[in-house]
C-alpha cells in the first residue's frame, strides 16, 4: 500500500504522519489524530462544517486529499483557536451573542471567521457574509453569527495574525 509521510504543524504542535495520499484530510484529523472538533456534515463541499485552515487559507477538509496538505504546513482546527487571542475573542463573542443553537456548524463557522479576520480584520457585514457563504447553519439564521464576528473584529488585536 503506498503511503506518504507528512509532517504538519497542527495548532502549533508538530505531527508526523504516514497516510494514504488521497485519504480525506478530515478523516486524518478525526480518526488518525483524534481531533474530533472538526465535523463532517454533508461530505461533499456544500456545508462547511469541516472547514480548517491550511497555511492561512480556509479549506474544506472533506474534499482535501491529505497528501496535498504540504510538508510543514501550518494547520489550524477549531481545537487550536483557544490558544490564540483572536480565537478566544471569537469564542467569547459567539457565546455572548448567542450565535450557536445546535452548534454543529459552529466549528467550521468560527474557523472561517478566524481565517477571515486573520487576513483582514476590517470586516463589514457584507464581507463577513461573503466569507461565511460556504458555511451553512440550519438553526438560527445568520444575524447573531454576523453580530458576533463584527464584535470580535472591533476588538481584534492590531497588527497580529490573531
Amino acid at each position: 500500500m503506498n503511503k506518504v509521510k507528512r509532517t504538519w504543524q497542527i495548532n502549533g504542535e508538530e505531527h508526523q504522519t504516514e497516510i494514504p495520499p488521497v485519504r480525506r484530510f478530515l478523516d486524518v484529523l478525526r480518526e488518525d489524530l483524534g481531533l474530533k472538533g472538526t465535523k463532517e456534515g454533508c461530505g461533499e463541499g456544500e456545508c462547511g462544517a469541516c472547514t480548517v485552515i491550511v497555511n492561512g487559507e480556509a479549506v474544506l477538509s472533506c474534499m482535501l486529499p491529505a497528501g496535498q496538505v504540504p510538508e510543514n504546513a501550518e494547520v489550524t482546527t477549531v481545537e487550536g483557536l483557544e490558544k490564540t487571542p483572536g480565537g478566544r475573542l471569537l469564542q467569547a463573542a459567539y457565546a455572548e451573542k448567542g450565535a450557536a443553537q445546535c452548534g454543529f456548524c459552529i466549528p467550521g463557522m468560527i474557523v472561517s471567521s478566524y481565517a477571515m479576520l486573520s487576513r483582514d480584520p476590517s470586516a463589514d457585514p457584507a464581507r463577513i457574509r461573503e466569507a461565511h457563504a460556504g458555511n451553512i447553519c440550519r438553526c438560527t439564521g445568520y444575524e447573531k453569527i454576523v453580530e458576533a464576528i463584527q464584535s470580535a473584529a472591533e476588538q481584534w488585536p492590531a497588527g497580529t495574525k490573531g
Partner: protein
Amino acid sequence: MAGWNERVTDLSIASTMTFDDVACAFPASLQEALELMADEKTRGRLLAGGTDLMVQWESGVLAMPERAVSVKALPELRTIEETEADVIIGASVTHMDIRRSPLTQKHVPSLVDAAATIGGFQIQTMGTIGGSVANASPAGDLAPSLMITDGAVVLASVRGEREVPITAFWTGYRKTDMQPDELIVRFRLPKMPEGYREAWRKLGPRQAQAISKVMGSCRGCVEGGVVKSFRVAIGSVAPTCVRLYDVEKWIEGKKLNEGTLAEAEKRTSDSITPIADIRSTAEYRKWVTGRIVRGFLEQFADQ
C-alpha cells in the same frame, strides 16, 4: 475497474474502492509530471484542487482510479503573468488567486467576477482553473469568461506543447480535446482592449454554493450607442459552454434601441436548445438567456 476517465454506470464497481486505496504521485516539477503521464504504467488521473473529483469519486459518479497524479503544487502551474497582449494563468492557479490578482482584475474582469461566484471561500481557495476546465462540466462557471477572450488552452506532454483555442477545447458533454498523456499547463488570455468592457451574470438558487441554472459573460464595446464589438458566451444551456456567434454577428454595427434590444433577446432565445434537468426547465433557460444577453447590451449602452 473502469478506465481512468470513464463515467461509471454500474455503481457496484465504484463501491469496491475507498480513498485509502488510491495511490497518488506528487511530482516536484512539470517535467516529472509529464514523464509520469507519458508512461501507461505510471500515468494517473490528474488531480488538482479536488473539489470536483473528490465528490465524484465518493458518490460513485466517477470510478475511483488506481492512481492519481497531483499537479496542485507544481510551481510552474501556479503563476499569473502578463505579456503585452495576454494574461497568462497557470493551470493550478485557484479561483481565489484569480480574485486577488491585479492582473486578472484589470485585464479579464469577468473571469474575476465568475471566480467569485464559485462555491464559497473554501472552494475558491482549493479549486483551480485547470481543474475546472478539465472537468468539462457545462455548468463550469469559468467557461464563458474564458471563451469571450478568444484565448487558448496550452497543453503539454513529453511530446511538446500545443495550443487549443478555448472555443474548440470542449468537444462534448464532459469531453475535451486532451490526450491521455497531456495536462493543461496554462491559459493564454488576450487582454480586454482599451475602451472595452466585460460583464458576468449567474443565475442560481442562491448567491453562494450554487450550481448555475444559466450563466454567461460578454466582452464588447459600444460607442455612441452603436455596438462596435460584442462577444458573448453562455453556460448550462448546452452540452458545453457556447459562444453565440450568430447573435454577435447580428448585433455588431447596430444602434442599440428598443427594437434592436428586443430582436437581440429573441435571436438569443431562438439560438439555443437547452434541456430540462434537476436545476431548471428548458423553457426558463431559453427565456432567461435572452434576458441576460439583453441585459448585457443595456449595461454597455448605459456607459
